[in-house]
């Protein structure tokens, strides 16, 4: 009973009009909570102690790690949406992965730039191609750009959605490579210290601001993703209505 109710609720969301109504209700709350968490996170980021070895550069972690986390989470959201497009033909799935790609590209770029700004004082270099973590994240950035270009190159949205879904799923192989690159190869980049099977090895002094900022970034992503999906739905309505208008105009001319 509850199962069928859940399925009904889920398929209700497939209706873009209902989804738009939901976005209208949810987004103001999400945005408010995001703003509060950013205020708390930034306060903690600049009031907690620096690291005894890294000094104040540890504060870069509070924007670098959440950006890198979002870079991978966004791609995972796109992969789930791609399955939605290919398997269930869910009407919102292709809207979802198309809207997510620019957000993923932005957060990946942010992870790369802040990582570089952290690398220069701590490793003595802005960038090294020999590091598997750095290179695999750069490939992720290129994949986001490729998917954006692909979506723009194919005019028919449903065809673009199918082609990019296949590409997204093939490219998903990069996500575990990014995650485990620091274990599989010798890298300048440190090993995982938060998401570990044996629990975080990072001091609570750094973990607290990091978690608050990570939640703030995640909620920011979902706020922007919902709004970008709404924009994409509106864009498709505009295109459909313009097409209808043109058809009616040409019919009028013929008559």
């Amino acid at each position, binding site marked *: 009973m509850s199962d069928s109710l859940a399925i009904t609720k889920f398929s209700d969301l497939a209706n873009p009009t209902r989804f738009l109504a939901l976005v209208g209700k949810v987004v103001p709350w999400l945005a408010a909570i995001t703003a509060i968490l950013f205020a708390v996170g930034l306060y903690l980021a600049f009031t907690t102690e620096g690291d005894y070895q890294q000094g*104040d550069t540890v504060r870069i972690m509070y924007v670098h790690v959440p950006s890198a986390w979002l870079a991978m989470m966004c791609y995972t959201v796109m992969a789930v949406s791609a399955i939605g497009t290919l398997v269930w033909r869910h009407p919102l799935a292709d809207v979802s992965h198309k809207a997510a790609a620019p957000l993923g590209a932005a957060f990946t770029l942010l992870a790369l730039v802040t990582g570089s700004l952290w690398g220069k004082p701590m490793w003595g270099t802005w960038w090294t191609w020999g590091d598997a973590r750095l290179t695999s994240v750069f490939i992720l950035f290129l994949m986001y750009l490729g998917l954006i270009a692909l979506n723009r190159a194919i005019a028919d949205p449903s065809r673009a959605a199918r082609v990019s879904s296949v590409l997204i799923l093939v490219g998903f192989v990069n996500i575990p490579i990014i995650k485990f690159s620091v274990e599989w190869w010798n890298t300048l980049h440190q090993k995982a210290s938060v998401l570990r099977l044996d629990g975080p090895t990072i001091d609570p002094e750094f973990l607290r601001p990091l978690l608050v900022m990570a939640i703030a970034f995640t909620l920011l992503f979902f706020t922007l993703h919902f709004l970008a999906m*709404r924009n994409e739905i509106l864009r498709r309505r505009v295109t459909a209505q313009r097409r209808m208008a043109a058809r009616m105009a040409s019919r009028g001319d013929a008559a």
Partner: protein
Amino acid sequence: MKYAFYVYTSYGVATFVILCLIAWVWLDGRGRRKDLAELEASGFRRRSAQPTVESPAKGEGT
């Protein structure tokens, strides 16, 4: 603060990128709503958004 340049530049870049994303989503949304409003003003609306029950399909666009 030691290495202040690296720390503040990181936060500066993060703020800039996030503000760009917010501006993109906001301006895109505003533009598309404007497009829809213009279409509606010129008489085109979605079939599901027809105001009267008895208007036949032929009445669209007039």
